[in-house]
């Protein structure tokens, strides 16, 4: 078990024991959830899965993509451990978010090379890429109250955020011309690249921030209507330590490394060190406060019969650069207290329509829920451009 995991386990279980001791007369719920979602209009699920699982991206895998003029993807992974009582909740969250938008030429250059651009100019702008991972230790209070028409449960939590890794790239101008015979490359590039990666592991502290989590659930007195507003990871992170920023605004022609045939010797020393040295010449420290990739969601559930519910809602990921939110439409069937099957309909994220299924099993002492947000991706595999899952487990202590 890795060191970071060990530390997190110690911290969390300390919290568990505290809450258990302080809430001895109440039921304590301890749970964990794992959520991952991926959306793209160009990069297939097969491609992204291979990329993330450190596989070799063969031509077959690359051919599953469908790059177009404007391409984008969004990748989100959120895992939680929590424990809560009637009034308190302690949560440990692990979040990874990545988003990018790029032109087709940028994709081809990165994954296929510039050979096909002989005699042509590849356009690499506008291009944006963001990748963050961080951990949050959050404590919140749960307050229940009633109005004339609604029973409201309000949760508010404050989290201490530890930034693990940041990569941010924006290119406002990127043009690469390749001579037909490969005798020169003309590059016109305006780009900013920031990164914080002083040891990319769970214990790495590259930033410190704070976040706010508010969850408001209101159920009508007749139990027929339920509304839920959620704002999570609304906060800021100050990236520091070894955070670096590199700004490039250059236009040059590269026609090879100059060598002198008449020198005492010819040395070829092109390697990673050469590039690293160049990078070090252009980078400087970066310390900036940036917003966390907040998530906003709203759902409205209406019971239409004893066993059927319909839910409509929306979700917006702050870092996805999608101006149009993600629309949610679910239909749930729950023949009894123990089982609930939900048909999920999602629309958004690069105009993709996705369907999914969710199953919830409730035991008096525990529950488990599994969602597959994009069932078609399980069937069509390589031709799917979005996928997602949600897995949750809870136990009453």
């Amino acid at each position: 078990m890795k060191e970071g995991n060990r530390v997190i386990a110690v911290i969390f279980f300390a919290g568990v024991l505290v809450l258990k001791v302080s809430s001895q007369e109440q039921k304590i719920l301890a749970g964990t959830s794992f959520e991952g979602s991926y959306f793209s209009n160009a990069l297939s699920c097969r491609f992204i899965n291979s990329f993330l699982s450190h596989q070799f991206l063969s031509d077959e895998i690359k051919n599953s993509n469908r790059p177009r003029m404007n391409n984008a993807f969004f990748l989100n992974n959120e895992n939680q451990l929590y424990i809560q009582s009637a009034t308190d909740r302690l949560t440990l969250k692990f979040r990874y978010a990545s988003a990018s938008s790029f032109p087709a030429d940028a994709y081809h250059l990165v994954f296929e090379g510039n050979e096909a651009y002989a005699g042509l100019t590849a356009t690499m702008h506008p291009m944006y890429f963001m990748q963050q991972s961080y951990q949050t230790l959050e404590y919140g209070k749960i307050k229940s109250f009633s109005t004339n028409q609604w029973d409201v449960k309000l949760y508010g939590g404050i989290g201490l955020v530890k930034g693990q890794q940041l990569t941010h790239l924006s290119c406002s101008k990127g043009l690469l011309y390749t001579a037909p015979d490969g005798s020169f490359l003309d590059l016109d590039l305006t780009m900013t690249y920031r990164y914080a990666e002083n040891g990319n592991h769970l214990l790495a502290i590259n930033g410190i921030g704070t976040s706010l989590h508010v969850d408001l659930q209101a159920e009508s007195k007749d139990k027929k209507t339920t509304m839920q507003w959620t704002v999570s990871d609304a906060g800021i992170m100050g990236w520091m330590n070894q955070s670096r920023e590199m700004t490039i605004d250059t236009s040059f022609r590269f026609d090879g490394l100059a060598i002198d045939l008449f020198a005492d010797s010819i040395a070829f020393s092109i390697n990673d060190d050469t590039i690293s040295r160049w990078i070090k010449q252009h980078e400087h420290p970066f310390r900036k406060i940036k917003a966390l990739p907040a998530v906003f969601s709203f759902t409205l559930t209406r019971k239409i019969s004893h066993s059927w519910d319909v839910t409509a809602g929306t979700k917006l990921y702050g870092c996805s650069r999608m101006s149009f939110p993600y629309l949610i439409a679910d239909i749930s069937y729950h023949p009894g207290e123990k089982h609930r099957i939900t048909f999920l309909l999602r629309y958004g994220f690069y105009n993709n329509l996705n369907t999914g299924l969710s199953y919830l099993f409730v035991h008096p002492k525990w529950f488990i829920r599994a969602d597959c947000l994009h069932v078609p991706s399980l069937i069509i595999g390589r031709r799917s451009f979005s996928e997602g899952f949600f897995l949750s487990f809870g136990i009453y202590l």
Partner: protein
Amino acid sequence: MRFSRLQKYIFSFITVFLLLFCRRDEQTAWDVKILAPLAKTSLTLHNLIADSLHRTNADGTISLVYHSRLAEATIDSSLALPDTSNQANIKLNTLTLDPVTVSNTITLSQLVAMVPDSDLLQWAIEMGLSVPIPPFGPIVQDSIPFDFGSYFQTMTVSDATVDITVHNHFPFPFTNVEFSIRNQGNDSLIFQQTIPVIPANDSVLISAHTGHKTIESRLYASTSISSPGTSTPVQLNPSWYISSTVSIHDVKIESAIAKFPPQMVIYNADENAYDLEGIQFHHIIFQKGKIRIEVYNTLPSPLHYIYTIPSATVHGIPFRVEGVVPAASGGHAYHSTNECDMTGYDLDLRGIGPIERMQNKDLNNNGYFDPDTINTFYNEVSADITQTTPLIPLSLNDSIYIRGEFLGMVPLYGEGFLGKDTLVIHETATFSNFLSGISVEHFELDSVNLLLVINNYIGAEGAVKIDQLTAWNTRTGQSATLAGYPAGAMININKPAKPFSPNDSVIPAQTMVEIKTGLCNIEKLLEIIPDKFECRFTVFINSGVAPPPPGKGTDFIYYGKGIRVEMAASVPLSFLARKLQLCDTVPVDVEQLDISSVSGQRFHVIAENKFPLTASVQLYIADSTGTICDSLITGAGKINAGIPDEMSERVLKPVKSIIPIDLTEDKIEKMTKKRHLIIKAVFDTSPVDKKIKIFDGDNLSVILSGNFNYRIH
């Protein structure tokens, strides 16, 4: 065993964490196809020829320039002075002795005792009676001793002066005093004189020369005295006496056994001449050399000698060496050797004349101040003995042997008349940095301008004849010899200006000899791309020049300086060439090159040529000994020539050529092991039958372009 709910929860938590946060060590990787330039280089004239060897003309064309020493010779052998020695057996000039004096006294009683029957007179003396002294005499006193034993034992003199002083302390005069001195040994008469009268209480000095006599240390004097007495009584006083003092002085000794006082016994002045075979020096400064003085002393007395050369000075101080030679003993002479460094000495070789004039003294007693001469210097030797004890024998036949030797005398500077001399210079000059590494099958030059610069450092008039000038290409074995002017011509060379002082450097007189196309075949010498020149010159010194009067020559020479011939060439780069080959071996380090991520590579050399030359290029992989194991270029490897503009004859736009390079992993591995690359390029002018011009700015730029798969991690 049943687990509690909490235990089950913890177990689940751990499992999930392990699953989620254990990472794989592999990296995501994919292949991309790259088309990009990798390396570039440029070939200009500056790479082939050092900047000092070419210049840009006003019209932009290039000329090769070369300036180098061709031949050099000196006449230092003429300047060298032969080792010279001179020796002399020098007899003693003079021997003297200090004046010697001996005295004798006769009292009244002693005098009366010589008179017969003088008892009464003696009683009267004892009684102090006053009596008249009757006339008496002659009283003869014989064997009055005079002992000069503490001064000499015996001596043979050519002359000596003897002084006899008689003091009369009697109250009456003596008359007819006869005085003679003889050797006690052989009774030979040394001296005889008669004093007519010695007044009472008075003294008389008589002096005479001995002439040539042998005098012994023990002498005796005989005297005969008479007296008229006194007419009146006088009180007889036994203290009355007469004394005689004999003094010998101004002794001119021929030989003696004596105690000699300190005196100079030898003085010798001489002139020494060098035989320099026609060269007449009147002035020399030595850069090195020494003089060795050997003195052999046969005298039984230590000898102090002084050897001077008034005409050799350093900082105005004449050369002087002195020493002491111990006395000879047991019949064997004692000798000493003294060596002195002559470095820096300025030697006047005009003989004794300048010394006489400087000292205003006729040193050789010939009645006049000698005129100046050449190659001759004047020196002096003197020797003296210290006071000798015990008595030693010396004679004017005694002598000392002195030898002076001049060794390794090398002049730094000489002045006079250098004589008529002929010097043959035969030399081979190698040019290793001029177009080295180039070979050519056929090469034609448009024109050549070559200048021979003759630098004359010798301070004399002269002439130079170019007997032979041959160019060699030792790689191909080709040679070409100069025909036409100035081969065989006699070229007069000027005399350089004499420096203000011998310590100043001489500025050579330069004579330029132009060798150009049209008058001779000079272009043929350079068309073979020579790396060696063989030349033979004859230098004539003072040919047709009459020798000046002695001491009036104005020629001069510095050691190490002679005639230096340089070559200055200017060759416009307008030429026709076939198979002009450049070859260079370069160490290559490719160990740092990371090719593990590269596959399917194809490389090209893209050449842009502004030279009006086609080129066939090949790259060979070789080891340090030049052993080739592989090549990198498949096919002809041809680079097309730039096309000169008809008006300006200049290539205005480069011509592009593409040559495929076969750079497989196997070949890169060979390069890593062998570590050397041989670059061979063969050029032909284009068009093939026309001379082309090379301009400043012409170049051949080469880019290595790669088209390969690269694996990104």
